[in-house]
């Protein structure tokens, strides 16, 4: 190619943005592809309002970082060095073994039913992660959402002041969610965290090595106090109650070993429950490309390269550790990709500072992981009649039976014998729960289709290895621009014909709504996970 080498970056969160800017600054033509309607990823998707008027220093600092990234992106876009494709849901990245070229296949359009492909010389996967939610009786009631779902409610301005929320589960993400809800005017009745203060203390050395992080934590603590949020450490929500909709939760105190403390339960009234048990990496695209995983993360070397030639990975996809870590990894990955694409030697000195930050932040993340593990024995407390897989309505009892009665031995055979994980979300939501219930190791599922793809799009692919047409289609000339507001997008979409399939519209309709985007990310808990698109508004708004 006479032109500049082309790098496709999938995911425009902190990792993807940092990578794109670094690579573009070093003479690489970057195509930044993201499913969301704006760049920013999970973290920068936070509405400014959630940060409050009097931002703690740490948050303020992050906001400034975001503004810098956004300005950089604008600059490179104007100079034609970065093409940003928002609203592009990548369903597969394929590599042509003969030429080494990549086909990045995405769905776009309001119904995500138009196929499009971008040709690239190298690919950088910065697909982030998704939330882990573990089941308990009542978790499928309307009013129960994931922590990320609560975040989306905030974004859409859907939290009406006067709502009463409980935030529960485990992990550092619960703090920003609780403060965000409180700042938006909801009454946060309690923050229920299964880890205890002692566990945090045990990891003190690794945590103390991160003064910025501790300051961030302290900032949240102060804000919780200011909003009068009661924090209940070493406790868990063991049941959600309500007929037709959430009206209360039962919170139980846990013993040091994670078991329920006798007599330690209380009932808290609330109409919203935000639950989360940490994040898991998105690895579908990497797995299909043949990248080796380690555990549930994409394995990378010191330069953030995967073991497939031409494929880099950065951020949460390679292990969960927060926005700062994602930025550092993205920076390194972008630098390495640029050097390799230009055929020059990589010079790790160029990213030495980022590499040091990466080491420190990974240690910090490992320490946090150990603190914020789901409480021991949680799986034994899930009664047989609790639904575990919502898409297929499979209960805990059926999942246990697949192993105990039918001889399943891993997540795949549990799925085959119980249908848990066969539905719309393809097990993204229930796999961790199924693993816990059955004792099978949690492995990254094999999902060659990272998104549901219309058969018409598959049938229309060029008949080549990577699904690339014989001549380079070039880059789509419609760079929708950044940032795009929701209204702007809706208007652009209005003229788009939605063709009739002869099916009830609920069946053929768009799989996702504009409000709460990635169903497949599993960050919505409403009853409509089974039929995405059937309900244009998350149930929390009713």
């Amino acid at each position, binding site marked *: 190619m006479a032109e500049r080498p082309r790098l496709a970056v999938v995911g425009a969160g902190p990792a993807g943005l940092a990578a794109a800017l670094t690579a573009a600054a070093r003479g690489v033509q970057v195509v930044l592809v993201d499913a969301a309607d704006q760049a920013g990823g999970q973290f920068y998707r936070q509405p400014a309002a959630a940060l409050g008027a009097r931002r703690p220093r740490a948050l303020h600092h992050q906001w400034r970082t975001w503004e810098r990234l956004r300005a950089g992106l604008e600059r490179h876009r104007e100079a034609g060095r970065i093409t940003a494709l928002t609203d592009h849901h990548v369903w*597969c990245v*394929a590599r042509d073994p003969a030429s080494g070229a990549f*086909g990045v296949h995405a769905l776009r359009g309001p119904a995500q*039913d138009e196929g499009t492909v971008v040709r690239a010389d190298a690919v950088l996967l910065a697909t982030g992660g998704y939330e882990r939610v573990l089941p308990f009786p009542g978790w499928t009631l309307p009013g129960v959402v994931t922590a990320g779902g609560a975040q989306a409610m905030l974004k859409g301005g859907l939290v009406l002041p006067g709502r009463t929320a409980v935030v529960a589960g485990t992990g550092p993400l619960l703090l920003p969610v609780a403060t965000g809800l409180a700042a938006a005017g909801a009454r946060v009745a309690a923050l229920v965290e299964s880890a205890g203060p002692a566990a945090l203390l045990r990891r003190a050395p690794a945590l103390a090595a991160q003064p910025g992080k501790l300051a961030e934590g302290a900032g949240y603590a102060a804000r919780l106090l200011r909003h009068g949020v009661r924090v209940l450490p070493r406790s868990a929500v063991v049941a959600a109650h309500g007929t037709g909709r959430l009206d209360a939760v039962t919170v139980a105190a846990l013993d040091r070993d994670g078991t329920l403390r006798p007599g330690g339960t209380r009932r808290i009234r609330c109409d919203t429950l935000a639950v989360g048990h940490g994040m898991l990496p998105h690895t579908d695209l990497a797995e*299909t490309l*043949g990248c080796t995983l380690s555990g549930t993360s994409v394995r990378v070397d010191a330069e953030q390269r995967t073991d497939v030639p031409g494929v880099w990975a950065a951020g949460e996809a390679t292990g969960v550790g927060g926005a700062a870590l994602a930025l550092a990894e993205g920076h390194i990955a972008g630098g390495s990709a640029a050097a390799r694409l230009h055929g020059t030697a990589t010079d790790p000195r160029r990213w030495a500072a980022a590499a040091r930050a990466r080491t420190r932040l990974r240690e910090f993340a490992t320490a946090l992981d150990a603190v914020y593990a789901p409480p021991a024995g949680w799986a034994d407390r899930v009664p047989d009649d609790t639904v575990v897989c919502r898409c*297929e309505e499979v209960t805990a009892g059926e999942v246990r039976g697949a192993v105990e*009665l*039918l*001889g*399943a*031995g*891993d997540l*795949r*055979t549990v799925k*085959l*014998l119980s*249908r848990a994980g*066969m*539905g*719309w979300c*393809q097990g993204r939501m229930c796999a961790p729960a199924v693993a816990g219930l059955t004792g099978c190791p949690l492995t990254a599922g*094999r*999902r*060659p*289709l990272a998104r*549901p*793809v*219309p*058969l*018409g799009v*598959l*049938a229309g*692919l060029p*008949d*080549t*290895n*990577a*699904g690339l047409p014989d001549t380079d289609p070039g880059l789509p000339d419609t760079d929708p621009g950044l940032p795009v507001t929701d209204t702007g997008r809706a208007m652009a979409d209005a003229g788009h014909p939605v*063709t009739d*399939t*002869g*099916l*009830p519209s609920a*069946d*053929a309709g768009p*799989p996702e709504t504009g409000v709460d985007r990635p169903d497949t990310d599993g960050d919505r808990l409403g009853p409509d996970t089974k039929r995405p698109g059937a309900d244009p508004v998350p149930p929390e708004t009713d």
Partner: protein
Amino acid sequence: MVGAACALYAARAGLDVRVVDRGPVAGGTTGAGEGNLLVSDKEPGPELELALLSARLWAELAEEPGTAMEYEPKGGLVVASTPGALAALRDFTAGQRTAGVTAVPVGADRLRELEPHLAPGMAGGVHYPQDAQVMPALAAARLLRASGARTHLGHTVTGVLRTADGTVYGVRTDRGDIHAPAVVNAAGTWGGELAALAGVRLPVLPRRGFVLVTEPLPRMIRHKVYAADYVADVASDSAALRTSPVVEGTAAGPVLIGATRERVGFDRSLSLPAVRALAAGAIALFPFLERIRALRTYAGFRPYLPDHLPAIGPDPRAPGLFHACGHEGAGIGLAPGTGRLIAQALTGGAPELDPVPFRPERFDTDGGDAR
């Protein structure tokens, strides 16, 4: 699947059965394929006879308590898009009928009574009421349980125990030896490797297939539907039917589309040309599918032997060793018949079918793989 069926019929013949598998139940090809129980796609010959026997046995098994395995005797519908293809299909069915297959011609005007969403303009078709369906993983798990056999899951066979005169007396596993006067090789695609452990050759090779699974839908497709296209094989002057993927609705809602056939070894990576072909074939039959989404796709490796027939029965080269593998794209459908033949061979009973075409040693004696 095949091992579970062998265990069931052997146990029912009064034998004490142990089942050893290095993985979980249905962890091999059985968990990676589809559960079509077809007679429609088979030409007259030994495979069709085994399929017809198996079809009867499947219907019996489905009646038994404790065997819920999504058995559906829904019937197949083979359609021809051109008059030429229809003529070839009719010739093909004439032969099948003499072998005992029920094949009912369906005129162009009646096709959409059977399948309301079928593409218009088809020349005609044939309805096969004997075609049926099971969910393979469930079927294997249920039959295994019904057999009452002791299972050793997660145990890998690392050797076949043989006396000085070559007689087989058990297997060595990574977790100890299991002694038995008879060993059945039901290792599917890995059957050749297992045979090699006993010192005999069985050329089983993998043949990859992809399946596409759609989002759940209300029932829109009632039968197993596939297209028969006429292909003249000029060289041999014989006519063969080329078939497109089988499209069918399932009780659980998704439409299954499968499967492709490729010889590419054990390469599991996604083949876009394969899923493209599946999608295109399915849309040609049911245009409404164009807008329907595929939720997942997966690949499995069919165990095939050079003459496309399974190896079933005792191996004279290693007394005490029996084979039940190499069923290629029909191992689910052919499993009960295979189990019955194996049980009869183990107990010295009279075989229900002529076992000669399935002899495991045929590749050594009949001119090897060239056959």
